[in-house]
């Protein structure tokens, strides 16, 4: 598709080269970190709080149980029990089920192989962390974080925030001048993901390392211990998946091609208000 603007539309430069490059490296790294992370989770599919595992009492577990009706995948959350056969715990289509907490299509490799999962995870953890540092360095030096991500005072007024929520709920997106900048919900979610959730993934990941614990002993206390850090790591991963789902839905709803092009070439089309009939 040509980049030539149609009448009534104007192409603006939306994303810097640094933002675009780090975005796509992040897509690759987070995708493989998630898949290898689920592989690692599958090696012991239960979560606890505190320093040590309380094996009889996990707050979350996804396991195979032998019942009178044959094997079932059972997910427990606190005291609640759910039969998740086929999806979690005893996964795959009927007749070809495997004893895996998360199904093969969600893990790398698809079969249980912790050693491989760890190889993928730590390689892409390095890539992810270095990429994140580059993003933050450019974001601070180039002003991207201050200029594009920090909400303005006007945007933070309760009335404005409520109207943005109402507009988003009706899938009404800003046009013209207003489309040049991020709206307050975008700014808020990008800030939380980029500066809170993603750094938390690195910190909780490091807190699971016995070597790092000896080097920086106080950090693990923020999460109440190693098993607490493992739980927060898993919860933050879930929140990032949730963000990606909403993010992709919004990309599609607010003009898929325009959005994707702006993250590849940097150019984004905005409608000129005076050209509208």
């Amino acid at each position: 598709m040509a980049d030539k603007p149609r009448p009534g539309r104007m192409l603006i430069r939306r994303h810097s080269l640094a933002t675009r490059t780090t975005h796509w490296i992040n897509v690759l790294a987070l995708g493989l970190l998630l898949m290898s992370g689920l592989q690692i989770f599958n090696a012991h599919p239960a979560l606890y709080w505190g320093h040590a595992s309380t094996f009889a009492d996990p707050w979350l577990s996804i396991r195979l149980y032998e019942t009178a009706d044959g094997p079932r995948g059972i997910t427990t959350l606190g005291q609640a029990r759910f039969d998740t056969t086929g999806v979690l715990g005893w996964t795959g289509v009927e007749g070809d089920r495997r004893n895996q907490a998360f199904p093969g299509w969600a893990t790398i490799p698809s079969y249980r192989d912790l050693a491989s999962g760890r190889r993928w995870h730590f390689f892409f953890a390095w890539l992810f962390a270095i990429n994140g540092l580059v993003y933050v360095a450019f974001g601070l030096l180039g002003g991207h974080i201050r200029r594009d991500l920090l909400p303005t005072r006007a945007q933070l007024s309760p009335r404005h925030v409520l109207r943005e929520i109402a507009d988003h709920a009706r899938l009404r997106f800003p046009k013209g001048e207003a489309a040049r900048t991020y709206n307050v919900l975008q700014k808020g979610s990008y800030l939380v993901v980029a500066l809170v959730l993603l750094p938390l993934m690195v910190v909780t990941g490091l807190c699971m390392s016995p070597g790092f614990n000896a080097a920086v002993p106080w950090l693990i206390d923020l999460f109440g211990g190693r098993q607490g850090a493992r739980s927060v790591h898993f919860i933050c991963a879930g929140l990032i998946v949730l963000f990606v789902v909403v993010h992709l839905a919004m990309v599609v709803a607010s003009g898929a091609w325009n959005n994707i092009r702006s993250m590849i070439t940097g150019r984004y089309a905005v409608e000129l208000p005076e050209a509208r009939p």
Partner: protein
Amino acid sequence: MSTHRRGWLKGAGAAMAGLWASACDRLNENPGVTRVLESAEGLTLRAQRLVMDRKALAREFAPADISADFRANGSIDPDDPEYLAQKAGGFAGYRLAVGGLVERPLSLSLAELRDQPARTQITRHDCVEGWSSIGKWTGARLGPLLDRAGLKPNARYVVFHCADNLGGGPGGRYYESIDLIDAYHPQTILAYEMNDAPLPVRHGAPLRLRVERQLGYKHAKYVMRIEVVEDFAHIGGGQGGFWEDRGYAWYAGI
């Protein structure tokens, strides 16, 4: 939606998932890809050694923190005939051999090991699978023991040969290796007691390694012989340990 169409959609979904999974698996089994991914291990080791003081201690816990349900993994009851004979005799005839690149090879009974400089520590054991348990360990410090044997100048690694055949069959013997930084760490001990009692068989009786800043598989159980080497390429599968030969990282600090 009709059941027919639903069935068709399910089938298409399963086929897509299958294609996707086999593509990922092929990538995972590609030796070139594996080599690239493994390059991060060296980076992790160097980065951890950079930020970590050589003598930085792993956290020690209070007696109240000791796990009542400390899990035992890997071998829990070795069936090696020599080991079974030792076990039947309460390990009275057990002797730990220390050899390889040392000036004075040693052969020590459990009583002699108990006379060595000892250390007691309540530490967290982190399995590579993701779980943790807290236990109290008492044992002979490895550093003074190596000094007693006297390391030759080209000594670089300490290899622990174990009684258990976890792999079953030839080449299935458990073994592990650590470098001299970890060998001389003050918390690195050859434990003969767990939670104030003689080390139970399921946790590695009569002697197991504790190397507290690394994951569980480095903590070799049923240690029979210690060999000091310059290089471990000629031992087992050449990767420095039973699990290392099966794809796990030699440096298990993360």
